[in-house]
């Protein structure tokens, strides 16, 4: 092993974290070994031992005295070896390498916000609402985002709202964000159910939180939803990031 001193620092910290988790589990378990914790397991083990001994005695009795002695072994299992870390030549590796020569993922580089669209006052009886997901590159390096964001809405009781998600057609291409630059994805969603116009969209409630996942970025972002009510059986139209 390469000496730990010149390895990445986070590796040692991760080791400490795992040790802490392991310690916690050992403390929870207490001094007793796991399999003898409950009387029922102990009983089952004793019963099992008696049965096995009985079976063994029967088998031994059935072998004639001059039969050749068979060495009992487990069936040989194919030995799996740890793979060598020789140079990688898989297609996906080459692909990501070449892509990275021109692209950098925005992982860890974004501020994510929701913006509300301001409607003129005469549109007060509309049944839809418009907002935008705005991603800002807050690092001093350029990076790329792409695709349609995925949203998961929950109300204040944690119940999931499930409006139909429609992807607006558009160019699903990578957008390069220079430092400080923004990418947007517009969201148009059913926000009210008016019996004569959109009767099927009810019930409409104001979500408390939204979890956002971006296709090229690991993990998710949890935001407070500030764009007003969303109808559970309405639609939510999402545009690609641009």
């Amino acid at each position, binding site marked *: 092993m390469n000496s730990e001193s010149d390895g990445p620092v986070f590796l040692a910290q991760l080791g400490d974290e795992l040790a802490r988790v392991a310690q916690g589990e050992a403390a929870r378990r207490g001094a007793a070994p796991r399999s003898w914790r409950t009387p029922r397991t102990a009983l089952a083990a004793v019963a099992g031992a008696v049965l096995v001994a009985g079976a063994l005695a029967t088998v031994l009795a059935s072998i004639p005295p001059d039969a050749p002695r068979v060495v009992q072994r487990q069936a040989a299992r194919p030995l799996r*070896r740890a793979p060598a870390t020789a140079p990688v030549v898989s297609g996906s590796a080459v692909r990501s390498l070449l892509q990275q020569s021109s692209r950098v993922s925005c992982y860890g580089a974004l501020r994510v916000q929701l913006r509300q669209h301001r409607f003129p006052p005469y549109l007060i009886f509309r049944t839809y609402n418009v907002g935008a997901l705005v991603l800002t590159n807050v690092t001093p390096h350029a990076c790329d985002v792409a695709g349609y964001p995925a949203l998961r809405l929950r109300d204040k009781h944690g119940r999931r709202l499930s409006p139909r998600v429609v992807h607006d057609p558009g160019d699903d291409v990578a957008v390069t964000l220079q430092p400080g630059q923004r990418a947007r994805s517009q969201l148009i969603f059913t926000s009210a159910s008016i019996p004569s116009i959109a009767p099927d969209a009810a019930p409409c409630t104001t979500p408390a939180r939204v979890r956002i996942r971006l296709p090229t970025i690991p993990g998710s972002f949890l935001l407070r939803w500030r764009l007003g009510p969303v109808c559970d059986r309405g639609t939510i139209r999402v545009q690609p990031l641009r």
Partner: protein
Amino acid sequence: MRTARRVEASCDLRRSVDEPAAFSAFYREHATRLLAFVARRTFDVEVARDLTAEAFAQAFRSRRRFRGTTDDEAAAWLYAIARHLLSRYVRRGVVERRAIEQLGIRMPALEAGDYERVVQLAGLAEIRAAVSEAFERLRPDQRDAVRLRVIDELSYGEIAARLAISEPNARARVSRGLRQLAEALEAAPQIPEVTT
């Protein structure tokens, strides 16, 4: 039978079933190498960190399911988990974090020098140099096809239209180009093995 297996079971992963503290030794033995392994396959330091953490977290959580007895088998088991996570990451673009969250592991932040250390550890710079060199050495028609397909992510139909060739021809050029890149990488002598 059971006692016989107990005596034989000298590997740390196996021991950690009864003494969770033994898992630390297992981690220390394999962490650096596994990190290099995933870093070489993702070329992304943060993703490599997350995948390493999740692989160990899953190994810890399900260590009772490990049926082997030797260190080699334990390593193979760990790498099988890592491979599985990697393939999911490649397919979905998202690192799974279920075991990390379940165990309540706080993900350590990347220090300033960590990027360079991982790049050095996994020999990423050498691989990168070997790939770009091999890329430049490709035949021009294959290089264009690979660039349009892999970097610009065009469909084969679009590549065919751009290069004024048929679609099967475009596929053939991309495939031959990628195969040559792979061969060049395999033959590159300057890429060192990751030692443990």
